[in-house]
């Protein structure tokens, strides 16, 4: 289904398709997805939190009707959580059950040597694909129709984990020592996200396309709000986006992201506000700002911010 998919023939198609999903993106994002699909390359998406990095993966999966397999990274994530694990319980159970069979197998064997060679014939039954418990990465390789693999917040994982990913990202395969190499049946689309809390290694970056999603500009943000909160009036939407854009120019601990803008739009809708006045803003600031310091800062500047908007 790769290449041939009609959904991926042009960048405009992708953009339009994403629009229909409610994910408004610029050509940059669409281009990256297009390239990732045609060049079989993973995409490393970076950007401030809340600009829709994870959402992008969800949208791609939905758009292509592929299963989304998500691996949330955290400190201490290791291969038994990310790649595969052996089903120890099952192995244990089977050994207990099969112990009785051992006598049958060895029945009539002449001496220790023959018994051993008979046992050898069974091979490593306990380390076979039946006993493997696939974790997200292996699962993505095994999807028959391909999948979208989201490796979320990679920067939270340890440095070693990145090395673990290298084989998967460049060759779409996983080596399991006991079994051999498992190659992806259909190469998944891999999207890695990072919040830039630490630098991702060069080796990994080299294997990925790189997409940086910044905060959207006013026009794009308006379209996003329009698509996500269509009930909101035009005038209020403009005011709201304007205000957010202004706040982002300030020196704050945490800048409001798109997700906060959307939340705020929903809040205003809930409060039946039809225009942005000082009281409403003051009462709902905690939706967009997450630190008390920030809230106090902006509160003090509210008159100036609101005045500028009106002019």
């Amino acid at each position, binding site marked *: 289904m790769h290449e041939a998919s009609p959904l991926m023939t042009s*960048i405009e198609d992708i953009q339009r398709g994403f629009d229909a999903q409610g994910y408004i993106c610029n*050509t*940059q994002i669409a*281009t*990256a997805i*297009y*390239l990732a699909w*045609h*060049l079989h*390359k993973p*995409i*490393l998406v*970076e950007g401030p939190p809340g600009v829709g990095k994870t959402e992008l993966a969800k949208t791609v999966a939905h758009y292509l009707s592929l299963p989304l397999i998500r691996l949330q990274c955290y400190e*201490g994530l290791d291969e*038994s959580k990310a790649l595969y*694990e*052996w089903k*120890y*319980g099952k*192995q*244990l159970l089977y*050994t*207990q059950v099969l112990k009785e069979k051992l006598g049958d197998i060895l029945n009539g064997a002449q001496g220790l040597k023959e018994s051993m060679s008979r046992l050898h014939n069974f091979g490593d039954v*306990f380390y076979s694909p039946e006993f493997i418990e696939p974790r997200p990465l292996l699962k993505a390789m095994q999807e028959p129709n391909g999948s979208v693999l989201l490796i979320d917040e990679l920067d939270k994982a*340890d*440095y*070693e984990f990145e090395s673990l990913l290298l084989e998967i990202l460049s060759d779409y395969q996983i080596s399991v020592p006991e079994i051999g190499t498992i190659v992806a049946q259909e190469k998944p689309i891999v999207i890695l996200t990072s919040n*830039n809390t630490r*630098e991702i*290694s*060069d080796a990994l*970056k*080299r*294997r*990925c*396309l*790189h*997409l*940086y999603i910044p905060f959207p500009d006013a026009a794009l943000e308006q379209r996003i709000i329009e698509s996500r909160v269509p009930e909101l009036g035009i005038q209020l939407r403009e005011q709201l986006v304007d205000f957010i854009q202004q706040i982002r120019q300030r020196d704050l601990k945490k800048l409001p992201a798109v997700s906060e803008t959307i939340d705020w739009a929903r809040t205003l809708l809930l409060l039946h506000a039809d225009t942005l006045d000082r009281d409403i803003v003051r009462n709902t600031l905690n939706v967009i700002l997450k630190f008390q310091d920030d809230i106090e800062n902006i509160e003090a500047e509210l008159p100036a911010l609101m005045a500028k908007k009106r002019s």
Partner: protein
Amino acid sequence: MDRKLVDFIRVLRNADVRVSTSESIDAMHAAALLGYHNRELLKQALSSTLAKSEAEKESFNYCFEHFFSADTPSLSQDSVEQWPAANKNDLSASDDMPSDTIIDNTTSFEPDISLQSDTSEHGSPVEASLANLLMANNSNDIAIAMAQAGEAIKVNNMQVFTQKGPYSWRMLKQMGMDELQETIRALEQNRDPAQHRIAHELTERLNWLREQVRDFVEKKYLLFASQSRQKLREEVLKKARLSSLDRLYHRDMQLLVKKMAKKLASQHARRKRVFKKGQLNAGKTIARNISNDGIMFDTHWKSKRRDRPKVFAICDVSGSVALYSRFLLMLLYSLHEVLPKVRAFAFSNTLGEVSNVFAQYSIEKAIELVNAQWSMGSTDYGQAFEDFSSLCLDSIDNHSTIIILGDARNNYGDAKAQLLKTLYERSQRVIWINPESKSMWGGGDSEMPRYAAYCHDASSCNTLGQLENIVERLLRQTS
């Protein structure tokens, strides 16, 4: 077009964007996939394949705009602004000519005349080509000619700014300036006023072209060469003796030290690891004990590996050595990502811990403060070791590395090498960095040979490059 892309990648590398071979291949695939017709799309495609961080994206945007514009438009703006006046002249002049030729671009008409007259006089159409090109006033053609000429003389190989002049000249020559001048001279000798006017016109346009070529070369220089000059300077600075450096370069040096630290940190980041301890690894335990009938006999624990070297840096901050200490401390403290436990001590005669100063202030400020507080008095290594031992002999264990920076010139005082011996025995490593070259060790009041006996590593170090090597060794071996 692939060659163009390779050139562009060279420009990017010049601008400190790391591009590997596999990435260039990706870029070519991407470009082939999307084509070169849509500039914006090409930019995005290349950006996602070549520039892999925010900083790199910025450099990329700059390079892209300049690289792909240096070749194409650039002329149009000037020619539009500059030429209307000329056109008007031409227009009034061409009134004498058959009126049916007055189309929107009158100038394109005139060159034909000049060309004809040229060919009739010299009999060679090639010579007139530049004249023709200039009179045609088609900025695109001129731009293409310029790009071709630039290619022919390999303008991209420019290295230093003094080459700008020669390259411009060679480029003009390549484009046929000599022939043009010949033509102009010939036209001037002609008695026909119309020819004179054309000659005048051509001279003016040639001057204009000179300017354009100069701009073109300047742009190429900025793209291809200016960065390599910066690199050259950094190379020189790395190798220069620290003591002989002008204060002027200190700022550059600081940047360089930061860069070095970043490099070292990223190379060694993986060595710093802390695992959970005391947790049973259930999976592995069961797996291991299958052979024991499933009885948990051989337990497997989640391991913990600590990999944090403790570094004690003892710096002589008196007079001549102060500068070296400055850079060592700067480097060590810029490495806090991989060396979280650096304790710094400064002395000239008495020794004191200065770690707190570094914790509180920026590196530059801290170094100033340290120098102000500790650099008085004549050097006394014996006293310094005594102070150091009483301060933190207890916290030195076999994971500690002690770095001593000093010239070991003890003013004929008591060396107290025994103290260093104790440190040597207790610690993992004692590294002595001496800014004096080895031949000077032991001469005069230098106690270096006696001290060196109790060091795991005593080396002479007087350039930033050597300093980097020493810290690199430190990071390698402490793990």
